[in-house]
């Protein structure tokens, strides 16, 4: 005798069962639906139907309209994206953004994960960014770091923070599990110390206080000190995430690799870290996302990253009323980057799940 599966419910039946089973449920469903439709209409009306899109009419056209004033973006997008970067040279900043994004995307592709390729991509990417932004050679006009700003600065701070902070975090995690107590304890104190401080105070220390302590030739530009501080902060948190991932790898894995004659570094790089990073992946993506958004804190040191540039874009008199539109625009930019990062994390998780039952 064959047992037939019950017939799949039709869409209508399914809806009735899920949302209209009892009179109370029906009432709640209808009310919620009304709220959703109302909000959706309001947002649609504000954002698109009644909105002003061109800057031709100036702020006055916006005052007349009931909807969003996207004119401020049309009029001020260059300040938002490029900050204080000189107007005629802003194509360089745009290209530099492309270089950083291309470098990030390339290093996310599994085919590029060999030591030589990753190194080539990173060196080429950062060099390209630096030359484009700073100039002073190849006929490009010199533009100092204090004039960098907007999206390019945000991306640069984020990517360099990760490039420096990530290897540092692995180093710290390995040192923290060292069998030599003076190494593991010292590392533990460093990690806990950095984690006990607010990021703002670390940035402030690196930007303002460090120059008093360091000789002139070691100081570098304020920007690079800020990046170092931010990388240190990132690595303290990430080190604990990596260590957690390492604790999830059974002891037998290392014993097996040692018994096969692998050296310490072979065992770490081929056996321990791949498995530890797989365990640590969700928390790692989390940390990257947080760090991306924390780049906005560099404004206290006087850098006009994208959020601060946005403030400047509407803060000059005539567009003062259109701050919501500016923030929505910036939020969208953040969203594009962070959401891509999350989706990439999900892809990695699927890819790394091979071999798990």
């Amino acid at each position: 005798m064959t047992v037939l599966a019950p017939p799949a419910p039709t869409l209508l039946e399914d809806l009735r069962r899920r949302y209209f089973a009892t009179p109370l449920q029906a009432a709640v469903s209808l009310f919620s639906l009304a709220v959703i439709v109302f909000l959706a209409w309001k947002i649609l009306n504000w954002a698109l139907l009644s909105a002003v899109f061109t800057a031709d009419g100036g702020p006055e056209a916006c005052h007349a309209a009931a909807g969003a004033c996207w004119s401020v973006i049309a009029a001020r997008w260059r300040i938002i994206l490029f900050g204080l970067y000189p107007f005629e040279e802003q194509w360089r900043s745009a290209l530099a953004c492309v270089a950083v994004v291309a470098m990030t995307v390339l290093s996310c592709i599994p085919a590029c994960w060999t030591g030589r390729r990753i190194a080539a991509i990173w060196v080429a990417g950062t060099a390209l960014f630096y030359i484009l932004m700073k100039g002073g050679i190849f006929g490009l006009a010199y533009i100092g770091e204090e004039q960098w700003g907007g999206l390019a600065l945000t991306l640069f701070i984020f990517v360099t923070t990760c490039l420096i902070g990530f290897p540092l975090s692995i180093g710290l995690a390995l040192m923290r599990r060292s069998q030599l107590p003076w190494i593991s304890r010292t590392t533990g104190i460093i990690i806990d110390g950095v984690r006990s401080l607010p990021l703002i105070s670390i940035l402030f220390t690196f930007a303002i206080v460090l120059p008093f302590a360091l000789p002139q030739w070691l100081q570098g530009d304020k920007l690079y000190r800020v990046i170092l501080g931010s990388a240190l902060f990132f690595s303290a948190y990430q080190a604990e995430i990596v260590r957690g991932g390492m604790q999830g790898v059974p002891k037998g894995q290392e014993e097996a690799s040692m018994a096969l004659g692998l050296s310490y570094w072979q065992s770490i790089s081929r056996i321990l870290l791949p498995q530890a990073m797989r365990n640590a992946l969700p928390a790692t993506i989390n940390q990257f996302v947080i760090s991306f958004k924390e780049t906005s804190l560099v404004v206290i040191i006087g850098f006009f990253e994208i959020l601060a540039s946005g403030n400047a874009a509407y803060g000059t008199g005539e567009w003062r009323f259109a701050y919501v539109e500016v923030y929505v625009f910036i939020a969208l930019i953040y969203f594009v980057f962070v959401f891509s990062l999350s989706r990439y994390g999900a892809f990695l998780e699927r890819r790394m799940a091979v071999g798990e039952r």
Partner: protein
Amino acid sequence: MNGPDPSQAETAAIHIAGLNKHYGAFHALRDIDLTVRRGEKIVVCGPSGSGKSTLIRCINRLEEHSAGRIVVLGTELNDDVGNIEGIRREVGMVFQHFNLFPHMTVLENCVLAPMLVRKVPRSEAEALARKYLEKVRIPEQADKYPAQLSGGQQQRVAIARALCMTPQIMLFDEPTSALDPEMIAEVLDVMATLASEGMTMVCVTHEMGFARRAADRVIFMDKGEIVEQAPPERFFTTAQNERTRQFLSQILNH
């Protein structure tokens, strides 16, 4: 007699003299003397906590010994990392819980150490791996991941992985204890084949059938000491020590 004899240190596969091991206040191994000739097969048995696993884990320095002397294939085990890595290259080990690398396929598990440690080219390492997978009778699983295999298959892969380093000595640390009963035979068969081909083997196991079939000598340990050692036929029939007889009656009569 296999007592400590300095002249054997150079020629024996494994020469252990006056070995002691402490974990804090716990005395895990007491004055162990043991010499294993080349080609000899030793089965080590004893109750849980008797130090038998600790003993064979000292042989490839997964555990550091506190006192005494261990010479493996003429090389003394000391703090010299070169010595340790040299010995590990020549001594294969099979663990109770297989310890296959879960993020690599069976084939990658097998070629990893030959390529990294012995610098064998990939094509050659793969040929070697397929040969040993054939030997443990699972060549068709080469491209699967460990989690896709049964326990018995995983343990056979672990044996093949160790053999790919072409070791001169194989250590087995309770290789069948984590297996379902129906899979024990397939692993023991592979081990018996290996034994018949002249591999030097030290096996910690409670499989007394295997001991009868393959061992040259059975060692009984209790409380960190070697209590008794004898060829299997004598060990099972005329054990001298009361503790040995008690242990044998516990594992044989049930």
